[in-house]
């Protein structure tokens, strides 16, 4: 029963990791950009949520309506103002600029909020649970998982069923020709980053309700998201969800063996999959 419990809890935790990963996967798919500051932006979103919910006395889930557009707007501005200038054949500029951004975000948060761990107060939601024949499911983890599934389904829909998604895929395929079709790639990239940070906002709020956070944990969130993307296979959103679940299960099962093994077990499973399936478990089928 312990094992089953660990696997179920790990699966639910995987939903959170999929939320970390989805935005990362999205911008890599559209513009081959890997955002090293991704984790720090998740933490930034958590702090934004914290401040908003305290200032307005709102439930942390309700502040999503403010934090999601705020982060999306920031993403658009960031992409058009800074990151677009780094894109090209050379991988160094985007990498180093987002790395610099990571340090800036982290230290700005440190300056404003200090290093003390904080947490969002979601009242009864945090402790509510349902009993399923000996298996206790927290309502919050289940909700997080459901939101992750919803977000991934939504992204999938945007990508394959809308004009915006068509533009994303066209620019990803061939920037020059997409430009000839009247797509301004600077704008399309801005929209992709906006969407990515909108997902980051959701991830940050759920992170902040679930656990305590401090400005230094961004790097760890980036790594979890990255591992989920690679395990699932680049460019496959549902694969990313599966990758998050595998990572989450590895961690909870590792923790069940020995609490010190939680993170290590996750990393080792990631390295194992990298060794035997370097393209991930579900690499993208289409072009």
């Amino acid at each position: 029963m312990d094992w089953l419990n660990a696997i179920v809890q790990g699966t639910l935790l995987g939903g959170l990791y999929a939320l970390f990963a989805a935005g990362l996967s999205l911008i890599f798919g559209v513009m081959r950009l890997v955002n090293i500051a991704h984790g720090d932006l998740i933490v930034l979103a958590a702090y934004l949520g914290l401040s908003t919910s305290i200032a307005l006395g709102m439930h942390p889930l309700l502040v999503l309506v403010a934090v999601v557009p705020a982060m999306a707007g920031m993403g658009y501005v960031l992409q058009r103002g800074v990151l677009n200038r780094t894109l090209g054949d050379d991988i160094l500029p985007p990498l180093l600029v987002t790395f610099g951004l990571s340090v800036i975000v982290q230290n700005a948060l440190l300056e404003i909020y200090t290093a003390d761990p904080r947490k969002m107060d979601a009242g009864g939601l945090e402790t509510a649970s349902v009993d399923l024949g000996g298996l206790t499911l927290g309502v919050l983890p289940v909700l997080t998982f459901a939101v992750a599934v919803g977000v991934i389904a939504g992204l999938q829909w945007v990508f394959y069923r809308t004009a915006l998604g068509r533009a994303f895929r066209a620019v990803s395929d061939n920037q020059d020709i997409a430009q000839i079709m009247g797509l301004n790639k600077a704008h399309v990239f801005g929209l992709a980053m906006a969407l990515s940070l909108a997902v980051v906002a959701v991830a940050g709020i759920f992170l902040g309700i679930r656990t305590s956070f401090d400005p230094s944990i961004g790097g760890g969130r980036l790594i979890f998201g990255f591992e989920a993307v690679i395990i699932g296979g680049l460019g496959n959103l549902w694969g990313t969800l599966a990758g998050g679940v595998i990572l989450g299960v590895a961690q909870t099962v590792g923790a069940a063996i020995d609490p010190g093994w939680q993170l290590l077990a996750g990393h080792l499973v990631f390295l194992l999959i990298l060794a035997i399936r370097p393209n991930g478990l579900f690499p993208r089928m289409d072009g």
Partner: protein
Amino acid sequence: MSVTYDVTRSSQAARIAAGLGAVILLLLIAAPWWAGRAELRLIGEICLFLSLASLWNLMAGYAGLVSVGQQAYVGFGGYMLFALTIFGGLHPLAAIALAGVLGALVSVPVAALIFRLRGAYFAIGTWVMAEVFRLSFAQVSALGGGSGTSLPTDIVRSLAEGRAAREALAYWLALAASVLVVASVYLFLRSRRGLALTAIRDNELAAASLGIDIWRTKFVVYVVTSALTAMVGALIFLQKLRISPDAAFSVNDWTAFVIFIVVIGGIGTIEGPIIGTLLFFALRETLADLGTTYLLVLGSVAIVVMLKAPKGVWGLIRSRFDLELFPLGFRVRRTDQKGA
């Protein structure tokens, strides 16, 4: 009047720089006699950061291997110093050398794994490896687990009689490491393999068609860099005399700062890390009181440099004065001669 062309590697500036460098080196060797304790420590630290920066630059600026996980080898080297002296009974100097060998050995399987990741994903892969190292060493209770341990006094004493002598020795080792690293990077880049590396950086496709084995060349760079980084790591913790997983595998201390040094100084040049290290420490000594603000400034400066002057401060100087202090390329000089 006939025109002839001289092909030469050296230049006036390079010869002057070499002379000046020799004088500075002599002064630095004599530092224990003229510098105070704190200054000696600072210069030693500068030397160690210069070594880390030169090594990171070799990987990122020449081999195209952008790592944000070099703290893996800094920490590994540090822990090896402690483990080999405490459990192996080795003399610290032997332990430092062996840390290099072991660093090379562990880097082989690591490279085999993370070389499967491309570009930016490679970078995050190196970070994951560093995390694996950190979490693994935190599991070793004999080395203090998560809270770390100090180097026992008898081992510290075995290094040299008296604190002043020990500190001088640690300093000289740091100085020697930086000279060794900069010289090896320079000589390596001048070698056949090194020139191949520059060819790969400038055009991977063309280099492949010239029959340069790109994977192997990058692999060799990775292993050599790891070995030297592990030795520098051992030296860093010989200075500190105390180690813990968080300090040993700190991404900020051993990678973020190093990246800023190289970016600001000028990536892909030998001179860049030297200039960058000096600038970094100048900035640190003046802004250190500001705490996090200092890091905010550093991050912003790095971004601005990357966007506006991607070749860094040294790139600006070089484009203005056509200087090269460590001549790598050959230069063609036209000399006009009267008569035949």
